[in-house]
């Protein structure tokens, strides 16, 4: 990989009480690279995502963005640094409309005194949200509908569209193909390829291993909070990947 390292975490650990969720995990992400992050339930994937996105502070370890050490004390700092995250199943406020969700925390205001007072440019945000989501290339509904009226797949499309349209350096997608049919899943994989082509570093977390094998450059396997394998995707087969995730591969039982 000729590209520079864009995002790196070294020796991250995180405990929830007596439960060790992350145990010395290290990861290097290059610009224009897609990493697949896989592991069984409870392996620590979501915890690692939350540490990388600034939602949780790690108990130990360091984070570097473009070589500079960072300590995220809240998600806002990571967002402002250009790191965008799609969280599994909890990314949208369902009582808000599509455009309100897309612009949540980054609202645009009307011009003049009223804008200074916090009055929102509703129409402008609706139009821009519509454009941004169209540019991402995922089928989605009208941007002034409340999220609660959308299907699971449409909600996921909005959440992905939001993350992709705002990402400047790093894009973290936790189970983006959840709730999606085959056609929509294919669209998401295309979105990931586009993000890669734009030079973003992408971390793709999924249980759907064919998707991971199809779209990633490198696959990192987590087990019990530790990274047990980090190799180019070409070095895995479907069987060896499952074996590495479950821990049976080294035994070569079959």
């Amino acid at each position, binding site marked *: 990989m000729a590209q520079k390292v864009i995002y790196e975490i070294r020796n991250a650990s995180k405990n929830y009480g007596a439960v060790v969720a992350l145990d010395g995990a290290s990861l290097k992400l290059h610009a224009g690279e897609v990493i697949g992050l896989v592991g069984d339930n409870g392996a620590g994937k979501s915890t690692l995502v939350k540490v990388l996105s600034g939602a949780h502070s790690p108990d130990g370890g360091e984070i570097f963005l473009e070589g500079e050490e960072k300590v995220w004390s809240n*998600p806002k700092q990571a967002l402002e640094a250009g790191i965008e995250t799609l969280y599994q199943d909890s990314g949208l406020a369902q009582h808000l409309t599509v455009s309100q969700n897309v612009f949540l925390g980054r609202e645009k205001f009307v011009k003049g005194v009223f804008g200074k007072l916090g009055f*929102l440019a509703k129409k402008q945000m609706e139009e821009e949200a519509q454009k941004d989501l169209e540019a991402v290339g995922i089928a989605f509904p009208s941007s002034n509908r409340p999220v609660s009226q959308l299907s699971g797949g449409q909600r996921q499309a909005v959440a992905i569209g939001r993350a992709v349209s705002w990402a400047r350096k790093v894009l973290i997608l936790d189970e983006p193909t959840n709730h999606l049919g085959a056609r929509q899943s294919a669209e998401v994989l295309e979105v990931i390829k586009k993000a890669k082509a734009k030079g973003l570093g992408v971390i793709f977390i999924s249980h759907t291993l064919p998707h991971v094998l199809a779209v990633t450059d490198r696959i990192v396997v987590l087990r019990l909070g530790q990274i047990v394998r980090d190799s180019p995707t070409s070095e895995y087969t479907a069987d060896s990947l499952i074996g590495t995730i479950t821990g049976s591969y080294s035994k070569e039982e079959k």
Partner: protein
Amino acid sequence: MSNSKQDTAGKLSLLTQVKASFSNQSALLVVTLVVLGVVFQITSQGIFLTTNTLGTVLNDWGSYILLAVAQTFVVITGGIDLSVGATVSLSSVVAGWVLVRGLGLDSTTTGSDATPYVLLAVFVSLMVGLTVGAINAFLINVLRIVPFIATLATMGAMAGLAIIISGGMPLQGPNNWELGIPYNVFGIQLPISTTVLAVIIITVICGLVLHKTKFGLHTFALGSNSFATRAAGISPAKQITKVYMLSGGLAGLAGAYAYIRLGAGSPSNGSGMELYAIAAVVIGGVSLMGGVGRMVGIALGTLVLFTVQSGLLMVKVVTVSPSLKQVIVALLIVAAVAVQTLQKSGRK
């Protein structure tokens, strides 16, 4: 087979239609108000629909609407503020204390001479309310106490403080009574006084803030999905602080309203008001689960509540005792929640 299927489908669509017609809370509340007006006009033998009665209803409405507005913001975040009634008592008492004990004034100062002191009372009440709100926010954010318990504690403490400061008696102070008297324009009696007008303006501003500004949007977002709100870079703690301080500030202004209405700061000015504020909010269509509510609904819901309160007093065909009134108001709240549930299942 196919016949029975069609029948079921027909019934379903009828049910859906009925539900859909109930799905606009504000329209439903307006219809309710009209129905109540007609019913009370008949049962009061023609004395309900007068400017006088409307003035009384709006004056009562003014006492509670600021608390209902305060509660709206808080409940939309998924919280609750039980301390608003006690804040009314405390803020009116502190205002009275400043004027009576601090400045040595009494109720002989009236008319326009009293206006500067009334404005001082408004300012003091507002400051007291903001302080109570800040204490609530501290308990919720820093000590991580759930809003119900945190505001229950401040409710008790503030009600107690109001009694200690006032000595348990109303503090009669200066007052410009004209502020609370309905306008008479060219011989035409209107139902609105300066205080009611001020409260209407505050309610409209709060409605704009809730529905048109970033602050309002983040209030809805927090109640809808606090994780997503934080993930979007918004600090839930800061938003909670602002919302509870707004709630306290509005309760403080309601305390000033009570002071102007009575010309006194009394420790009983706000007792029990929190329950009516919560009832008004529920009737107005705010979900106690957070994330849902419209200010128009709150204004109308509060109006329905106090139309019932005033109307029941004027019923002549049967005697409505205060205890029976309580039961009827309780039934109204149950009906409002039942309609909400119907609406929810109608939408699915």
